[in-house]
């Protein structure tokens, strides 16, 4: 199978997966922040990595990323990506005053953001696992603050042995009062994509 074979129905299914996953993650985020969190309709992007980076604000856009590796029935990566400027908002939301610049987050601040990423990634993945009755494990999250191009090279390399394109389901969160735009990126590998589709009764 390759990514060119995906048709409208497959894309809709992936969007729905994004909807369910990010809906749960948004609820988790709202609980953490004690605020309402709105979300956009998820986008399913099947693009080469240069375009993927462009949709995330260009290669040198500085972002904070929490990455977790997916294991079990589904293999791939899950990334929680926020703009640097939102770090203080998120940290304040959980009662952790943030005095640092994005590039000098203290160990405590890094750990807090990493944990928030972990909670969101886990709620996203758990909802998909429950829906598809698949066993999906997430690794301990890893945090990195850097240029988004460098961050996205990681999923691109994961996919590169089979395709020049990466598929990612992108969800944006918006919190009215504090305006956080966060991206949840699910980057499944190709075989896993087939498994998810089959579980949901769609043939490729």
């Amino acid at each position, binding site marked *: 199978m390759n990514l060119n074979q995906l048709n409208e129905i497959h894309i809709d299914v992936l969007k729905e997966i994004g909807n369910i996953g990010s809906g749960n993650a948004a609820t988790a985020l709202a609980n953490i922040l004690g605020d309402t969190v709105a979300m956009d309709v998820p986008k399913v992007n099947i693009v*080469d*990595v*240069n375009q993927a*980076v462009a949709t995330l604000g*260009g*290669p*040198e856009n*500085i972002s904070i*990323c929490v*990455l*977790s*590796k997916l294991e079990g029935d589904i293999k791939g990566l899950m990334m929680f990506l926020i703009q640097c400027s939102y770090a203080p908002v998120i940290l304040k939301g959980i009662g952790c005053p943030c005095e640092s610049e994005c*590039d000098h987050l203290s160990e405590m601040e890094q750990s807090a953001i990493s944990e928030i990423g972990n909670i969101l990634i886990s709620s996203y993945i758990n909802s998909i696992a429950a829906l598809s009755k698949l066993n999906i494990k997430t*690794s*301990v999250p*890893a*945090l*990195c*603050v*850097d*240029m*988004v*191009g*460098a*961050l*996205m*090279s*990681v999923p*691109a*390399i*994961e996919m*590169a*042995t*089979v*395709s*020049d394109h990466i598929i990612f389901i992108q969800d944006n969160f918006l919190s009215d009062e504090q305006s956080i735009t966060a991206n949840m990126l699910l980057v499944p590998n190709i075989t896993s994509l087939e498994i998810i589709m089959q579980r949901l009764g769609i043939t490729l």
Partner: protein
Amino acid sequence: MNNVITVGISDMKVASAPSVLVTYALGSCVGICLYDSFLKIAGLAHIMLPCDNHKNAADNKYKYADICIPMMYHEMIKLGCNKGRLVAKIAGGASMFQVSGDNEISNIGNRNVESTKNVLKSLKVPIVAEDTGSNYGRTVWFYSSTGAVEIKSYAHQPKIL
């Protein structure tokens, strides 16, 4: 700035003075700069993987170190560059995420650097400078007039190679 040529991910460009080549945000990828100081011809490649596994014939060959670097080398030779004059500077190959219990993600940068060095060695191109490894992304500016390579990163001071 005049004549800035952007090299994307899995991409390669060759240009002559006064062009400036740039590739943004190398993470675990490696940027390879080849330079002929007499003709002032510069080549910049941005590779993602160490070697071609030949699984996918249709894909972009510039993503592999073992294919892309020789292609760039031969293109520069065709333009008149002298084999004895070509020198290389390399940057990138960072390990962006330390995922516990996983070597694949944290090791790919090292494997890219290692493969790049092997390919350059087999082409007999000496590496005169490098800024590789560690855990941060790098943007590479390669000035064909001088052969200087400027490394910019987010959390570190710029460096000239």
